[in-house]
Structure formats: C-alpha cells, structure tokens
C-alpha cells in the first residue's frame, strides 16, 4: 500500500523528482570535487577526477529513475511516440505490413466466425448434449442415414427406455392461410406434440401442443404454434394472438402458442402444426420423418443406440416386407445439424491459416529488410548507452503498433467479408451454410481467436528483428557502418521465408485449381433435359373439386401466350419422392428397394423433351378408371431388367399402406433428380389422373421472358379460382445455379485466398530481390565496370530467383499431394492429385515469381556503375 502510494506520488511529482535527482547527483559531484581539492588537487583536475569516478551521469540518472518503477510507463510512452514516428516516417513499409496482416487477420477471423457459429457454439437448447438424431439406415443398400417411417418412430418411442422424449417432424411444407385479404403461403413444419418439450424450450406465449392435438385433428380445425418471426412479421406482434382463429385451406387453425425468438427449428418453419393424423402413423415403408430424441440424464448415446438397434432388429423380423435389413443410426444432434458443412468448414479454416502464415512470413521478411537498414541506428543507440533490453522493447512496441493497427483493420474486414460470404449464397434455408448466418457475430470466442492470431503476428514481427539484432555485434556494426559487407548468411532467413511463402501459395493455388475444375465439371453434368426456358411454379389447389380445377387450369395455362408446354408433377423437383418397390413375379433378392417416384400429367415428357426409349407415353387411355400403368427411367430398366424387355412386366409399389401393382408401359430417358454430384437414381413415374399427389408443382417451358410468362400464368390460374394464393416460382436455371451455390462459394473463397497468397508471395519474392540487388549494388557495379554484360547480371539474379522459386514450388507440391487429399469430399470427378491442375498452378506461380525477380534484376543491370560505386 505504502509502496503503491509512493509510486503514485512519484508519478504525480515526476518533474520535481527529476529535478531532485539532478540536484542530488550534482551535489555528489560537487562535494567529491571539493574534497579532492582539499586534498590538494587543482580545481579543474578535481572536477575531472570526480566526474571520472562517477561515470556516465545520464546513465546513472536513468538507472536510478528505473528504480522508481513508474519509469517503465514513462519509457513506454517514449517508445510509443518514437515507434509511431518511426512507422509514420516509413509509410511504404508500414502500409504494406498493416495491409498484409489485416488481410490475413480479417480472412481468418471471418472464416473462424462461421466455424464458430456452425461448429463450436453449443446448440441454444438446455442440455444440448442429451439431444440426438435418430436415422433409419439400410446397410445392404448404400448405408447413408435416411429418414424414419412414422410407424417405426412410434415403435421406437413406445419401446425404448433410453429417451426422456422422442419427437418426429417433417419440414418443407407450405400452409395456405388467410391472415389479411389475400391468401398467403407460409412455410411450416409438421411436428409431434412433444417436439418443443424434446428441445426443452417453453413457448413465449400460450402453450405448446398436447397429445390430443395430434390424435384428433377434428376435421377442418387444428391447433398451431407460431414462430416469433411469423408472430412479428405476419401478426404485428399481437399480444392477444393466443386463441385467434385463422382461415386455412381445409378449414381453420387456432393459434395456441408463440415460440421465443431463439427457437427456429427446422430453420425455415414459420408455423408448427401437429403431425401424424389420418392414418399417417401406420405408414411403415415410407421413410420421410426426421427424429430427434432427448436422452435420459446419464444415458449414453451408445446405450441408446444399442437399445434402438435391438428394437429395429425385432421390427425387421416382424415386418420383413418393409423393414428387412433396416437398422438405426444415432448421432449427436449437433453433429447431425452440421454433417453437410463440417468438413468443408475445417478445410476452409485450414486454407485461411495458410493465408495468415504467408502474411506473417511476408511481414517478417519486410521487417528483416527494415531491421537490416536500421542497423546503423541500432548501433548508434547502443554506443550511446541504450540498453539492449530497451532496444528490444522499442522493437516490440513497434511490432505491437503494427499488429494493433492490422487487428483493427482485420476486424473491419472480417465484418464486411462475412456479409459478402453470405451474399454469395442464395438465401434459401436448404443451403446448409445459410442456416448459420444469424449466428455469425463477433462474440467472445471470435475475439479471443483474433487476439490469439494478432498476438502471434506481434511476436513474429518482434522476434524477427530481435533475433537479427541480437546477432548484431556492436563493434562490427559500427565498423561496417551501414553494414554493406556481403554475407550470404544474412539473406538466409529471408530466403527461407520466401520459399515458405511460395510453398504455402502453391497449396492454396492447387486447392483453388481443383475446385475450379470440379465446378466446371459440375456445370457440364448432363441433366437429361434442357433447362432453358423451364419454369417451376408451386401449383395451388382449391379444397374441393380438384380434378375439375386442374383440368380447367391446365387448359388455360397451355393457352397462355408465351407458354410452349405445361405439365403437373408431384414434387417441386424431378423425382423427389421415395417409395419402396419390387418386381412382381420375380422379387428382388434384397427385398424392396427404394425408387424415386413422380406422379405427372402426360405432357411432362414433352415439357422436359425426354426421349422415349421403349414402349409408349401416358395418354387418355390411362384414366383413373383404367388399369394402373407405370413408366420407368432408363437407369431402373438397366439395373432391374438387364437384357430383358421391361414392357408389360409389373412393378409393385408400397404406396402408403397398400401394395399397388402396375404394368410398365414405357421406358424414358434419365433425368438427374438431385444435385450434379448425385448419380441418377432409378425412378418410376405414374400418371396423375391415376394417382394424384397431395401437392402439385407446375412445370412449363416458356418461349418468352420467364417473368412475363409467370405473371400471365398466375392470372390464368386466378381466372379459374380467384381465392388461391400465389406460390413461389423459380426458373430451372436459377434452381440449377443454387444447386451449385455451395461449391461455388468454396471455389470463390479458395480463389480469393489463393489470389491473396500469390500476390503476397510475389511481393515477398520481389522484396527479397530488390533487397539483394540493393545490397549487392557495389558488386554488380564492379562486375559491370570490369566488362560483364548486363544480360549476365540479369541472368545471375533471375537464375537465383528461379532456383528459389522451384525449391518453394516443389516443396509446396509435396505438401499439396498430402493436403488436397483431405478435400476429396469437395471435389467432383477430379482427382486430388490431378496432374494437369498441379502442373498448371506450378507454372503460373513460377511465371509470377519470375516476373517478381526480373524487375529488380533489370533495374540493377540498368544502374550506372559509377553512380552505384559513388553511393558508398
């Protein structure tokens, strides 16, 4: 306490204390001199002797001030001022260093904030570790996790004891509601009554569902729960919303609760409605439910999996037709949510750490050059009695200043670039990364990460010149003045830094090259149809007289100017439904297989311009009353009827809880149902009048501008029934483009990272050679003077540059071979070691490096030898 007070006092009375110290030391000298005079020395001599004995007065004063303690602060301010001035006076160095590091810090902070939001932050539910996702899985098929069937879910739920709660849900549906004047289509999720309890989230207003909601959706009336988003945007945050009745397609819905803003799952759902009505719970073969469970406190995931597996085994024995070979997969819910982005994000994190590595190496190189040119300053300061510690502190302060400035710049950049990151993606929630958009923010974890990165850069920035200056022997430096003595050792650190930059750059460049090639491959994938002019439009249906409405509406749509052809299909994309099927009279050994299923009107094939390979298309003969017919795609024909004629054979469909037998009338060419990375799946198509689906999607080919045609078609639909809502519309080209939006994002990010990397590496090479040329100017001048041709000089320097670049590139290629293998999952039909890509990027980088060292080399060759020598 006393000590602190003394320090504080010292701080306050600094000036007085300084004066006091000065007086004290002069008194010492004065008294000493007087005593010496008394013992007989001449006054002049006595003063000298006293002085000599005392030593460096300034140094003694400084050391004494050091004992006061607060002086460090004082000196730090001094160092700060000096450092600022120093940096200010070298704007080129300072600018490049700050910019380089800001880019590195910004990019890594941006990527980390996405990683943090998606992978690191715990789920916003109580005890998130207890939440698991339960999938059905068939190991005799491809073994990928699938959804569950309602009947399986019910059995799991009833028979298992590991779970506190187990809920099922099914998303991606639309509800038509009349809130205002016009009907609106609202994205909903259908959920079991205990859905909210499973997550452990309590409604903000009202209550959640009750068991009776699920069992008894009295015809035309149901209970619904609103998301906070829907409550705010669609109902103006009405505080009396609970109990309000809303008109919906098949009757009315009563709002029973509103969820808090944090709860948004599944992501796009604005309203939750009960699932499991109307015999749905009896479906066993159709697997379209997702299942989330909350484990009992203390129950392990393995125990739960073991229990469910044995239940699944029993179900497989009990229902061999539907469940043979089907088992379960239990994974942590957090993992389930990010399964599609986890690997890509870690790869991006790895890529961005290369950027920061290059940035650090680059700035370290710059600092090295700068500290070499500051040797004289350092030497002079040492000779004047500055302590080494003080010099190191000075360097550290300068490093810190640069790192602070670049951290500030980096944070700004990160903020801006995460926005840009998400702007590169279409804002549809089925694109995996978009889900995490709202979670991306500068929270504690991100800030800690940034602080960590900038501390590392500050250390690198400081350490390089410190290591360099520690080697500096005082005497030698004074002797050599600016240190123009050539020593190859001196350049070695710099050369290593440049080689490292080139090596890192080639890894990124190779990654970018591979992604670009994959992307081009993806764009060139054969879809099986011509997407130009295709429009996909949700097709609303009235509650009654659907058949009449469809006939009338389709008629008018086809008559609409600009429409070439139009058809209805059962899902918003081609063949998105899954139904188990088998072949009649010759069942498959593996049991039922899942095939894609589409119900289409007869013009479907004409709209998509598909080729009929065998048999015939659907026509008027295949009416609702006629015997059931079916068409198959080429893929199915090849897989299940190899070398046979499928026409006339019969397929059995496990359609809901019936088994329907249908005769094959035609084989049609393949349509790629999923994204370009997915293979074409076996598909069956049925005729709409024979098997109308609950929801319909209009697919049409426009001869004119999509927007105009779409508006005209909307009017045509409204001319039949004015009370129908407008449904979302998309052109096929947009849809295809958003299918590849995520790979495109990865490609762009890698592209940007590698562009930065190449630019920095080029800067590094350029800096090294500009420096070497500068240092060797004398030698080069002498060479010119004694008759070496200028081209020899250029060759000498460029030759060294090429040697260095090739070393870096070869080392980098070695690393690339190992690292690109990790990104195999992001590649499409391109080998991670694709020779063409690797050779291409190596040549590109070599060319860049060549240019970067050619410029200083040529400048060196052009210098007048006399001027260069005189410079010394």
């Amino acid at each position: 306490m006393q000590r602190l007070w003394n320090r504080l006092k010292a701080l306050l009375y600094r000036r007085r204390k300084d004066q006091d110290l000065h007086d004290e030391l002069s008194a010492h000298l004065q008294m000493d001199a007087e005593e010496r005079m008394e013992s007989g020395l001449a006054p002049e001599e006595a003063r000298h002797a006293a002085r000599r004995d005392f030593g460096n007065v300034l140094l003694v004063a400084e050391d004494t001030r050091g004992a006061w303690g607060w002086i460090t602060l004082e000196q730090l301010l001094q160092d700060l001022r000096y450092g600022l001035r120093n940096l200010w006076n070298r704007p080129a160095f300072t600018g490049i260093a700050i910019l380089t590091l800001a880019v590195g810090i910004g990019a890594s902070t941006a990527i980390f904030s996405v990683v943090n939001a998606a992978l690191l932050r715990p789920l916003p539910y109580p005890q998130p570790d207890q939440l698991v996702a339960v999938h059905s899985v068939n190991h005799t098929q491809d073994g990928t996790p699938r959804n569950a069937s309602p009947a399986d879910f019910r059995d799991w739920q009833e028979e298992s004891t590991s779970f506190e709660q187990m809920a099922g849900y099914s998303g991606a549906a639309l509800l038509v509601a009349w809130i205002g004047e016009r009907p609106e289509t609202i994205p909903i999720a259908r959920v079991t009554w205990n859905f909210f309890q499973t997550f452990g989230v309590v409604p903000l207003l009202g209550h959640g569902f009750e068991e009776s909601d699920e069992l008894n959706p009295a015809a035309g009336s149901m209970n619904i729960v609103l998301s906070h988003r829907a409550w705010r945007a669609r109902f103006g945050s009405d505080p009396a919303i609970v109990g309000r009745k809303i008109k919906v397609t098949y009757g009315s819905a009563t709002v029973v609760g509103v969820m808090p803003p944090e709860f948004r799952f599944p992501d796009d759902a604005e309203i939750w409605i009960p699932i499991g009505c109307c015999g749905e719970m009896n479906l066993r073969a159709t697997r379209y439910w997702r299942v989330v469970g909350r484990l009992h406190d203390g129950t392990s995931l393995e125990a739960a999996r073991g229990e469910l597996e044995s239940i699944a085994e029993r179900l497989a024995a009990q229902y061999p037709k539907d469940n043979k070979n089907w088992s379960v997969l239990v994974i942590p819910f957090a993992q389930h949510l990010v399964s599609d982005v986890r690997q890509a994000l870690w790869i991006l994190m790895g890529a961005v750490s290369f950027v920061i590595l290059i940035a650090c190496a680059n700035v370290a190189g710059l600092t090295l050059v700068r500290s070499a040119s500051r040797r004289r300053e350092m030497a002079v300061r040492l000779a004047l009695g500055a302590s080494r510690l003080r010099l190191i502190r000075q360097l550290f302060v300068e490093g810190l200043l640069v790192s602070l400035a670049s951290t500030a710049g980096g944070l700004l950049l990160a903020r801006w670039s995460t926005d840009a990151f998400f702007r590169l993606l279409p804002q549809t929630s089925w694109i995996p990364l978009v889900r995490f958009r709202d979670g991306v923010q500068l929270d504690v974890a991100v800030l800690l990460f940034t602080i960590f990165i900038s501390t590392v850069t500050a250390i690198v920035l400081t350490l390089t010149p410190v290591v360099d200056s520690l080697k500096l022997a005082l005497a030698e430096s004074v002797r050599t003045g600016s240190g123009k003595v050539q020593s190859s050792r001196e350049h070695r650190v710099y050369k290593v830094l440049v080689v490292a930059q080139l090596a890192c750059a080639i890894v990124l460049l190779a990654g970018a090259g591979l992604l670009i090639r994959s992307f081009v491959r993806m764009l060139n994938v054969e879809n099986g149809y011509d997407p130009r002019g295709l429009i996909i439009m949700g097709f609303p249906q009235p509650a009654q007289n659907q058949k009449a409405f469809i006939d009338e509406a389709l008629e008018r749509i086809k008559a609409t100017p600009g429409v070439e052809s139009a058809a209805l299909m059962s899902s918003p994309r081609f063949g998105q439904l899954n139904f188990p099927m088998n072949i009649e009279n010759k069942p498959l050994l593996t049991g039922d297989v899942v095939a894609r299923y589409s119900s289409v009107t007869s013009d479907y094939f004409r709209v998509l311009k598909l080729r009929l390979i065998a048999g015939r298309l659907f026509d008027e003969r295949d009416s609702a009353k006629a015997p059931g017919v079916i068409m198959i795609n080429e893929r199915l024909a090849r897989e299940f009827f190899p070398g046979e004629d499928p026409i006339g054979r019969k397929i059995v469909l496990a359609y809901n809880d019936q088994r329907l037998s249908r005769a094959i009338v035609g084989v049609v060419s393949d349509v790629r149902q999923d994204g370009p990375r997915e293979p074409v799946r076996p598909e069956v198509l049925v005729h709409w009048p024979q098997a109308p689906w609950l929801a319909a999607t209009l697919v049409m080919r426009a001869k004119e501008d999509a927007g105009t045609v779409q508006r005209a078609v909307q009017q045509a639909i409204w001319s039949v029934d004015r009370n129908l809502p407008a449904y979302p519309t998309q052109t096929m080209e947009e849809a295809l483009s958003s299918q590849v939006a995520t790979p495109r994002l990865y490609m762009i990010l890698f592209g940007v990272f590698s562009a930065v990397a190449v630019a920095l590496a080029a800067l590094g090479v350029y800096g090294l050679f500009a420096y070497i040329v500068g240092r060797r100017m004398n030698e080069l001048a002498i060479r010119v003077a004694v008759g070496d041709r200028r081209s020899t000089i250029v060759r000498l320097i460029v030759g060294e540059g090429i040697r260095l670049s090739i070393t870096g590139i070869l080392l980098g290629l070695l690393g690339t071979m190992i690292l690109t293998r990790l990104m195999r999952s992001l590649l499409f039909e391109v080998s991670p070691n694709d020779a063409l890509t690797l050779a291409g990027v190596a040549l590109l980088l070599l060319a860049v490096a060549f240019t970067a060292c050619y410029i200083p080399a040529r400048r060196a060759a052009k210098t007048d030898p006399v001027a260069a020598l005189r410079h010394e």
Partner: protein
Amino acid sequence: MAIKSHENRIDVLQGTLDMLILQILQRGPRHGLAIAQTIRSRSEDLLKIEAGSLYPALHRLEQQGWLAAEWKTSDKGQRAKYYRLTREGRKQHLAEQSKWQRLLKAIHLVMRPTEE
C-alpha cells in the same frame, strides 16, 4: 552491482549492497557520497561502490519505505540529500543481518580446511 575489480578489490555480492547501505545508515543519516566513502574506508578500500549502483539502490530502498530522505546542509555548508533509516528499515536491517550471519557461518563451514 558494483563491478570494479582491479587489483584486489572485490565485487559486491548481488543483494548485499542493500544490506551494506542499511548497515552504514545505522549510525545516522548520510548522503550518497558519504555512504560510498564509508563503505570504501571501512572495507579498507576493498569495496568500491559505483554511483551507477548506489543511487538506484538508494532510490529503490526509499521506494520500499526502508529509507527516508531529506535535504540538509552539511557541516561544510553544502546542501545534500540525506538518507536515514525508517522503522521498517531497521526491521529489515535486523532481518538482513541475521540472514547474513547464517550465510557467513554456512560458507565458513563449507570453506574450512578439511580434517584428515
């Protein structure tokens, strides 16, 4: 620490300068020069304390509250800064002294001629 060891002068052990100063000031206030001279004469010229060590040490001890300082006029009419021991300083001196005694004894024990 004082580092001037030509001929038979010896380096002052790390940390012992503080103790020496406390010891000298036992006998009353002194200024810096007088402290240095006293140490030198009492050690029969074996210890020479440099200003560069003395003043930082004095200021450090003052900072720690073991010394107090005030400006006084010397017998010869010179104004100088006189240091004196505080109560804390006396306690510290006792502590240092006993520590020193023990150290001396220990060194003595180690250094005595070995008995055959």
